[in-house]
């Protein structure tokens, strides 16, 4: 019997940097208006739950999926009004 293995590998470039998420949240806090992080948290709520993250505990060591990171980056850009550099 043959077993087909479908292994996919992520290159280093595809994997999010460990502290990218934290950098984005920190950037929003520093560059956004009052309670911008609360807006970010509200916008990402369904994805945050799906990801199993506790938003207010996001720190430098918090990892997440690429999908979550993309969504976070996109929401950050919208909230701050400038392109998120992270």
């Amino acid at each position: 019997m043959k077993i087909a293995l479908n292994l996919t590998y992520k290159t280093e470039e595809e994997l999010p940097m460990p502290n990218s998420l934290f950098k984005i949240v920190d950037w929003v806090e520093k560059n956004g208006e009052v309670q911008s992080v609360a807006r970010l948290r509200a916008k990402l709520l369904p994805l945050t739950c799906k990801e199993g993250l506790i938003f207010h505990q996001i720190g430098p060591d918090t990892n997440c999926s690429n999908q979550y990171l993309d969504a976070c980056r996109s929401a950050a850009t919208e909230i701050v009004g400038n392109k998120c550099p992270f």
Partner: protein
Amino acid sequence: MAEKQTKNMKTYSVPYRLDFEHRRCVVGDEPMLFHCHHYNTFLQRSIEDADYIDSQPFLVGAAAEVAYAQMQNLFSAVNVGDEKRRKQLAGELFRWAGFGSLDLGTIKETGGTVSTPHSHYAVAWKSKFGDSNRPVCHFVEGWLAGTAAAIYNQPFASYSVEETSCKSKHSDNKCEFSIRQGKPNWSVFNPVGMGQLHDHKPLPVEKNNVDYDGILNAVSGMELVGDQNGLIPAFGVYLTRMYANYYNRISFEFEHALSNKFGKEGIDVARPLLVEAGHVCAFNTFGGIMTSPEWDALIKPNLKSKEDWVHGMVAVANSLGWGRWQAPHVSEKETEFVIHDDYESVGYRAMYGKCDHSVSYLAEGAVIGLMNLVYVGKVHNKPAFTPEFYNDLFKRNTYYKAEVVSSLATGDKVTTIKVKKV
């Protein structure tokens, strides 16, 4: 209870009633209160930010709820049975309240199209956030649906409404609404009117130099009504005499939608945004009032200390329709605010019954904002109320913190908020 008709106004004949005992302004048995365009738009944007909940039906339905109840009561109270006069009175109320201008003459029982170059929400949105990429006048949509049903003696949920163009968008130079008789495209809520009000037992307040009653009478008598465009530019903001139950319904439906989907995390996400709307309100409206010529003429001459400034603004808050506000103890370190029949708690209990947590979000944000303005922002120096100043004052969020000590929404007699310096 004092009653007053607006007989002295040249352009308005809106029969409103001032209930001084409960600090309410009532039109057609619906409590109406002052809020500025910053609050209105910030609150709506916070709700719409959560685009995974279907908020438009309740943003529209909340307005239909209050408009239908109010117009039915109003038409009956002033004995207006004629369609033309009903439209005239409704349009006048819309303009008086600062919602904009609407000519309802173009709608028939089967529906029609109404357009206006002056809608508060569109003007406000553009002023605060710039161009929108979608229509923003959900309040007007609902108001039209409810009002049309009342004008034509139809059951409550008899019309659907769509805003087909909105001046908040770059491409549109007016707001246009298409009204159709038929199934509503919004959430249907039961109107709650005034809710359960209580006999107020005012607490003793520390000695101060503020004439609370004099300020209440003077500010309540000011003609803060819509101009020829139906807007109320005053104190550096656009004011509205909005329906208390509109704010209540959209805030609590927002919170419920999030908590239904995400449990406590949903409430934790909604709360800071609703409180922040109160900050925004305090900064802009309180700030605008405390640096206005009216403040300088009426209130400032008696103020001898920063504590008096707090008392002065609390006295003004009593005329905004938010309930009876008191500040029994005021100091830079800690101030206690007591609110009798705060409109958020009264509305919550009328709509949903007792709550397991405080829902006085506006009040919480407003009292922190007031303390920040007086003791940190040095409002007596008349600072410019810029976004930079706002960020500087509130972003650090390290000056004052609020603690809700008691809440009418949870079953206490009054809502008490202590604001402490961190």
